């Protein structure tokens, strides 16, 4: 009798993420995945109804993991500077620990499953972050700007640094390594531009 094996399932997910990052959405197939995971195609179909089912599950899993880590030790009632700092630390820790998951999530988010994945996985997260910024504006800890302006200033610099790190180099091919010191230096400037 076939049984559902959680270790095997974890291996399948790991291989699927690897394959999606390496070959992209179009190059991904259930057959290739079964082969790479060392299981039969039939077993793979026991776990997942079809390719779309698998992709959606992987996407929502990564999203949920991201949300959990990002909200660790964070509270929407925190002072703006303290809360944003926590967000930076959590997001950086996640990106440094799970670079492939992030790359995969980005690919899936831009696929035709993107909406389902973000809706499913980020339930509650958007609300928490929205309460946090609204509180901060109300308490005069944050200036009021359009959400796109806020996001690109509040998180854009962090993700740029993390991308440099992931590529191992910054502009002009200069070698680059992310560090706490660089993060804090950048954070101070970000905070300066967002506070009244």
């Amino acid at each position: 009798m076939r049984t559902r094996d959680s270790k095997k399932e974890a291996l399948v997910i790991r291989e699927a993420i690897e394959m999606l990052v390496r070959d992209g959405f179009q190059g991904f197939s259930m057959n290739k995945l079964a082969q790479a995971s060392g299981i039969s195609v039939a077993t793979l179909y026991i776990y997942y109804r079809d390719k779309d089912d698998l992709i959606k599950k992987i996407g929502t899993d990564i999203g949920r993991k991201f949300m959990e880590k990002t909200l660790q030790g964070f509270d929407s009632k925190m002072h703006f500077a303290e809360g944003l700092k926590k967000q930076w630390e959590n997001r950086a820790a996640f990106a440094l620990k799970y670079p492939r998951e992030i790359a995969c999530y980005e690919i899936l988010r831009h696929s035709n499953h993107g909406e389902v994945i973000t809706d499913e996985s980020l339930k509650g997260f958007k609300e928490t972050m929205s309460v946090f910024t609204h509180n901060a504006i109300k308490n005069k800890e944050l200036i009021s700007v359009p959400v796109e302006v806020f996001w690109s200033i509040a998180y854009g610099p962090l993700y740029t640094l993390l991308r440099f790190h992931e590529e191992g180099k910054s502009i002009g091919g200069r070698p680059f390594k992310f560090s706490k010191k660089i993060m804090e230096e950048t954070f101070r400037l970000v905070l300066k531009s967002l506070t009244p």
Partner: protein
Amino acid sequence: MTIDVSNILIFKTNIQTEFDKLRLKYVLDASHKVLKWSIDMEDVDHVLRIVSDSLTPDQIISVLDYVGFECAELD
């Protein structure tokens, strides 16, 4: 709902078009012994997945054969 994995049957088929799928739907939806079914049209093997606690693979193969589809169990 959790599904007992021993009730999941997996087949390789030649169901390729939406029209094929519609014909398949008539057959499978008519049987109350088929609890759930889906087909991966994108896959090279056009994998058919059936959840049933009473049908055997051979019974499904003969039903599909009867309506003119090729079908073989994948293991």
